[in-house]
């Protein structure tokens, strides 16, 4: 169970995009260990509405553990999670979804044989009486994909046909539309994509931001991170290594934070 820990936000973590605004999600002194492995040690984190945060770090730095705690997949050993300033505890991803926190998984969790509309409404199909309201599904799918400026040709196409970027768009459309996500967490969204497809996904992220949604992006590609993130949070060996606003930092500095300055 998360215990209440009063912990003053450090100057570094509290660098809001818009000062005076309340963070959408805030983590205070989160610790999590698996057996003898201390995955996270008193990590602070916050994200504001309409903000894109890039989460970077070497393998094993604790990025995945951190987002799994935010998305409700893991429960922290200690520390506090606040949503809209109110302490919460998530017992499952469903709890987080209810709070508007959606995760787009790396494997995207799509059903390849089903069409775009069916995937966007997967598990939450609208009905008229007992019959699925296909027209509404199609109309709303088209609408949400247009809002994301996606180039999917038709919502009647099975997602198995789509390119990696288009599949990403379907997964995001589901998060945005079904869960009315206020925070979208994306784990390595462009890892398996080509240049053009990557650009489309980065455009999707900017579109989410323009809609006032917050986005956490995990990526190994600093160029991508710099092109979308407002702030960059660096984890190293389970600890917060630093938080930088994009305009105040350079790729070289971020790399130093990722590997630990003493190595350079």
């Amino acid at each position, binding site marked *: 169970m998360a215990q209440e820990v009063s912990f003053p936000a450090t100057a570094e973590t509290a660098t809001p995009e818009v000062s005076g605004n309340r963070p959408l999600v805030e983590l205070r002194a989160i610790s999590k260990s698996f057996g003898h492995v201390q995955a996270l040690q008193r990590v602070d984190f916050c994200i504001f509405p309409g903000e894109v945060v890039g989460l970077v770090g070497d393998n094993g730095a604790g990025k995945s553990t951190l987002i799994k705690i935010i998305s409700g997949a893991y429960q922290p050993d200690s520390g506090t999670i606040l949503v809209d300033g109110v302490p919460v505890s998530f017992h499952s*991803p*469903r709890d987080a979804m209810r709070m508007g926190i959606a995760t787009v*998984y790396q*494997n*995207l*969790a*799509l*059903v*390849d*044989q*089903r069409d775009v509309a*069916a995937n966007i409404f*997967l*598990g*939450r*199909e609208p*009905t008229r009486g*007992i*019959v*699925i309201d296909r027209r509404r599904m199609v109309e709303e799918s088209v609408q949400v994909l247009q809002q994301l400026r996606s180039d999917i040709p038709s919502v009647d196409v*099975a997602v*198995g*046909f789509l390119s990696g970027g288009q599949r990403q768009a379907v997964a995001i459309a589901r998060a945005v539309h079904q869960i009315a996500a206020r925070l979208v967490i994306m784990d390595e969204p462009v890892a398996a994509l080509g240049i053009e497809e990557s650009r489309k996904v980065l455009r999707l992220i900017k579109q989410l931001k323009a809609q006032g949604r917050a986005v956490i992006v995990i990526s190994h590609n600093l160029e991508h991170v710099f092109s979308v993130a407002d702030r960059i949070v660096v984890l190293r060996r389970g600890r917060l290594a630093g938080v930088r606003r994009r305009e105040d930092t350079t790729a070289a500095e971020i790399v130093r934070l990722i590997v630990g300055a003493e190595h350079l």
Partner: protein
Amino acid sequence: MEQKLSEADLDAQREVSQCGANVDAILDELESASGVELLTRAGPGGLRGFLQALLRLREFSVLSATILLFIALSLATPLFPQLDNILLVARQISILAIIATGVTFLFISGEIDLSIGSIYGFLGIVLASLIAKYGFNPWLALVMVIFLGAIIGLVNGTVTTRFGIPSFIVTLGMLSILRGGALLASGGWPVMIKLPREDPFLNITSGHVAGLVPTQVFWMIGVMVIGGFVLSKTRFGSHVYATGGNQEAAVLAGINTKWVKTINFMITGALCGVAAALLLGQHRNAFPLTGTGYELDIIAAVVIGGTPLFGGAGSILGTFLGAAVLGMITNGLVLLGASAYFEPVAKGSIIVAAILVDTLIRRRRV
């Protein structure tokens, strides 16, 4: 069939769903091969558009096989295309198609039931015993047997989904248990029901409408129309496809995949009860060995109909056509005077051939 799909499986599935995308390529190739422009590139409304829609249809290959077989048999023997004979074939496939409807649900959700033949035989004995030995009203007995079939499905589904044992094994066990159950309950003897010839139970289960069309055909149509509706138009149907297509994604989307699969086992069991009643009405005798080996015919119909063994796709229309193909083969061989021993050979060959053609069409790449 709980295990995750390998990459190769996923590739195969992608190929399966790709058949529509390659329609243009296939048509182009046909044109260049023949040196004639077969079809003008009209819009979706033109002949080309119609053919495209036809080729894109999952059931395309089995539909063509059905039509070709029909034409071939009609040419081979003038007895085949007569109305009496067509209605006979329709009656002969009715019971099989009713059970196959449930099995289609199961296959799409990624499970299999090998105990269907035994459930069918066992429920026939139970139904006949309830009527003959215990004096139950036949309709009440029918309801009880349908309920019992659902319970058997519940057992199959629960053991499979809650304990993670492959349905192949669970239902193989159930196959043996219920065959033994049928023999024990009947002492190995047929159970005869003594209902007057004009009893409505007999008329409705195995009579004729207007003295011509067997009522079993209407049972089949009813079951398949309802099954097709549920599968393609309701949330449950959508969840069946999602469960078999990507179980992990379905679970993340909040679909109770274990329950979806269990319900499909129950539907299958209940439909075995319906089928048992139709057969009992026809023979007025229940035989303890009825349905032995029947699971293979039923599964063959489903697979010929284009429902893949690994789930995620398929349709009731396809299963109907698959059953029709099997029915026509049996009937055609009889009409042609072929040795009865040849029938399994022909059936087996057609099953492999149908799937081969299906695979070749779907594997076409640009």
